[in-house]
């Protein structure tokens, strides 16, 4: 059950770096640019370019590489699963066959591409949450969505929900681990058997977890009310968002890089 302790997905790591001190809005837009770029990439040069770009921004952020790797750990299974599906179910020129299983050249190609693409998407999205606190992220999103407020879009409410969800990830992971240990101590076997049996064994963990989540939500609402929270109207911020020249520069460079990679791919494509 140790894996739950190692999950850092969505957890902010405060470090004094230039990336951390950027306006959250510029980081959110830059991340969207990166994700779009990674999504469109097809050739090895493109993946290599985005990979080097990621290494560069990680080094500027001063976050340890091991932390970046561990932050993507929860989705490794999903990435592996997607790659395997593409490996065996893509039609094309066979390179290996064993019974009904057949690996094609196109399948191999797709498996590597999809695996790399998913991994990079997770890494870029994770990098945003590692370098931006949930409150900053929520403030940034609220600000970006604020033009939609006039059409009744609940920008503040969505941002607050996201802040709380991110804040409670570690708490709920600890809670899950505690319940799992309690069930194991009472004879539950969560690690053996096929997927269906494991899923069934997990129900006694999920039921108390849901009860706890609702109880916590109720207590949290009371605590927020006691601290004068009445919604977004009239709220101020300890650090008001400030868009600087650096933010414009970072965003422009990211955009130029994405365009450059895209053009390079088009020129090198046969």
């Amino acid at each position, binding site marked *: 059950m140790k894996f739950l302790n190692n999950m850092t997905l969505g957890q902010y790591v405060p470090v004094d770096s230039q990336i951390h001190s950027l306006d959250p809005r510029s980081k959110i837009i830059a991340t969207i640019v990166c994700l779009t770029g990674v999504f469109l990439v097809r050739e090895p040069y493109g993946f290599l370019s985005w990979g080097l770009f990621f290494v560069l921004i990680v080094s500027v952020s001063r976050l340890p590489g091991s932390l970046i790797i561990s932050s993507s750990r929860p989705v490794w299974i999903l990435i592996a699963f997607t790659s395997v599906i593409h490996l065996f179910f893509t039609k094309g020129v066979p390179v290996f066959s064993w019974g009904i299983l057949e690996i094609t050249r196109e399948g191999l190609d797709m498996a590597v591409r999809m695996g790399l693409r998913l991994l990079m998407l997770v890494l870029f999205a994770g990098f945003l949450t590692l370098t931006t606190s*949930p409150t900053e992220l929520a403030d940034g999103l609220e600000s970006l969505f604020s033009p939609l407020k006039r059409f009744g879009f609940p920008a503040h409410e969505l941002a607050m929900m996201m*802040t709380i969800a991110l804040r409670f990830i570690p708490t709920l992971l600890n809670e899950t681990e505690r319940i799992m240990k309690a069930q194991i101590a009472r004879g539950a076997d969560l690690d053996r058997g096929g997927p269906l049996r494991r899923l069934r064994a997990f129900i006694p963990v999920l039921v108390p977890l849901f009860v706890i989540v609702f109880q916590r939500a109720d207590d949290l609402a009371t605590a927020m009310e006691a*601290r004068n929270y009445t919604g977004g109207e009239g709220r101020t911020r300890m650090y008001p968002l400030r868009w600087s020249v650096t933010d414009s520069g970072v965003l422009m460079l990211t955009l130029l890089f994405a365009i450059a990679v895209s053009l390079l791919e088009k020129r090198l494509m046969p």
Partner: protein
Amino acid sequence: MTGDCLGRFSKVSFSYPESSEPAIVDIDLDIRKGEWIAVLGSNGSGKSTLAKHLNALLVPTQGDCFVGGLNTRSDEGRREARRTVSMVFQNPENQIIAAVVEEDVAFGPENLGLAPEEIRERVRWALEISGLEKMSRKPVYALSGGQKQRLAVAGAIAQRPPCLVMDEATTMLDPRGRQDLMDVLAALHSEGMTLVTITHRLEEILLCDSCVVLSRGKICWRGTPGDLFLLGPRIDEWGLEAPAIVREWKILVDRGLIGPGTMPLIGDMVEALCQ
């Protein structure tokens, strides 16, 4: 309501919708400005229900609760109650909203619509008095249980309320964490803050000016902590347990080794025990 009265309960009764029994019955209580009052009682005695009336989280089913001279039934009274009284609850995990220490402390002042400089100043003050000033940029998940509870206190006092209610806030702390929190409370009291401690641990009321005991939703006793300890076995009837030193003193009194009537000094007790 007199000028030095911060909160007043006037014949307050409250019943939860799901319960046929009232949680508190006919409560008459004044909380004076600058006072440190303890509300004692066993589980289910109604002490948390009483506390939630001060912050207008609950409104009386019968009777009236006044905070800052305003009835908490009115919108204005509710706003005044929220401004005047801050609360710290039992489990810090359920009252910390932000993921970073200073951002959580800022949550209350931000809700009050204060200027950024004022918020930063209040956050700095609250973190300093709670002994968390070196952890301002730490993620909340990296704090110990005691530090989280001190963070909850910092979040509550950053709103600069005239009154702080601690609703069994030491229950989940170890002795060291409890002592640290009591030190924070003593510092706040010395700055003139009105404190209401809700507890069933009698060790925590030694610094209080006065205390009331609740049993089955009714106030069954009121006086000073010293007077309470003199009651001896009656304390047990209310589901409370006297501190070890008071229990020892009772044994010495029962054996005739020390005179009854007043709380002895530690030195007298040691002498009596040596005999």
